[in-house]
């Protein structure tokens, strides 16, 4: 048995985690290039860039859950809504 077999990897989940890892590394690089400034946007709290990234990710997770729970449409639409949410939070949050 392959050593990683117990983790039961699939390509979609592997790509998902690689995407998260890439985003985290990207955030690190961005932070090193231009450090974040705490500011206040439409969210009721002042946030750093990392805070907004976290809020964006958590919000995206719940957007997906709501989408799967309520509609029978493709999950890709939920991804599109999430990306829109992420962009909004990162820019105006």
């Amino acid at each position, binding site marked *: *048995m392959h050593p990683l077999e117990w983790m039961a990897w*699939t390509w*979609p*989940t592997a790509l998902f985690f690689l995407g998260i890892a890439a985003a985290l590394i990207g955030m690190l690089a961005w932070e090193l290039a231009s450090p974040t400034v705490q500011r206040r946007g439409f969210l009721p709290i002042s946030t750093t860039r990392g805070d907004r990234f976290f809020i964006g990710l*958590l919000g995206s997770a719940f957007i997906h*859950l709501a989408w799967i729970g309520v509609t029978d449409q493709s*999950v890709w639409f939920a991804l599109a809504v999430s990306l829109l949410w992420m962009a909004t939070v990162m820019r105006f949050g």
Partner: protein
Amino acid sequence: MEKTYNNRAWLLVIPVFVIVAFSAIIPLMTVVNYSVQDIFGPGQRFFVGAEWYKETLRDPRLHGAFLRQIAFSLTILAIEVPLGIAIALALPTRGWGVSASLVLLALPLLIPWNVVGTIWQIFARADIGLGGRLLAELGVDYNYARDPIDAWITVVVMDVWHWTPLVVLLCYSGLRAIPPAFYQAAQVDGASSWAVFRYIQLPKLTGVLTIAVLLRFMDSFLIYTEPFVLTGGGPGNATTFLSQFLATAAVGRFDLGPAAAFSIIYFLFILLFSWLFYTAIMRIQTGER
């Protein structure tokens, strides 16, 4: 003068990071992997996409467990927080009574959770238990193993008994931290005891109360041991809360896929509440409004 930062301290975080990676991140990733597959055994697994999530999110039993969980958490908060404040206000402020009452109050907090369940299981039994027998003698038709309402009341009372002391201790420390000058000023102004509570004590308790509410909310949201020992989730599903629903699916029926999907959903809710918890506390500490 410019302050220089030494980022090499971050290297010291690496051991913790490695431990957390093995104890939390890798298992979590595995659960995510399980949640999108139908697993029959080693090497026999099939990708099913979001199917388990769809099934779990639309499962009426899960909705039931979720609503029961919310109802339970709100009920115990509505009882424990006012009760905790009231007891903290009534406690003695000097003399031997302070240590005596604090030790007595802290006792339930020191008892292992499964023992708490066992204590109440026996205490509430109508045939041999002190509480159950007393109710029976008074003519109350009470049986927590048969009647859902009775089971609910027993679980709530057990949690109140177990965890109100935490709220009391937090509030008591908050009350002791109020400088005497505030009370003297109130006395000079001839303030009533209600006014003292409303305008001096309660505002000063905001910080500890936030911590108490959020701790109790989180803990009650994860409650497993006590109801498991006391009622086993019954009668029927009357006291089956989220963690027990999960344990039944994962351990009892060995439905790894749906149990994993449910774990992820549960995890996301816990993550959301923890984040709200953290943000609220940080805001209070920094005095941001």
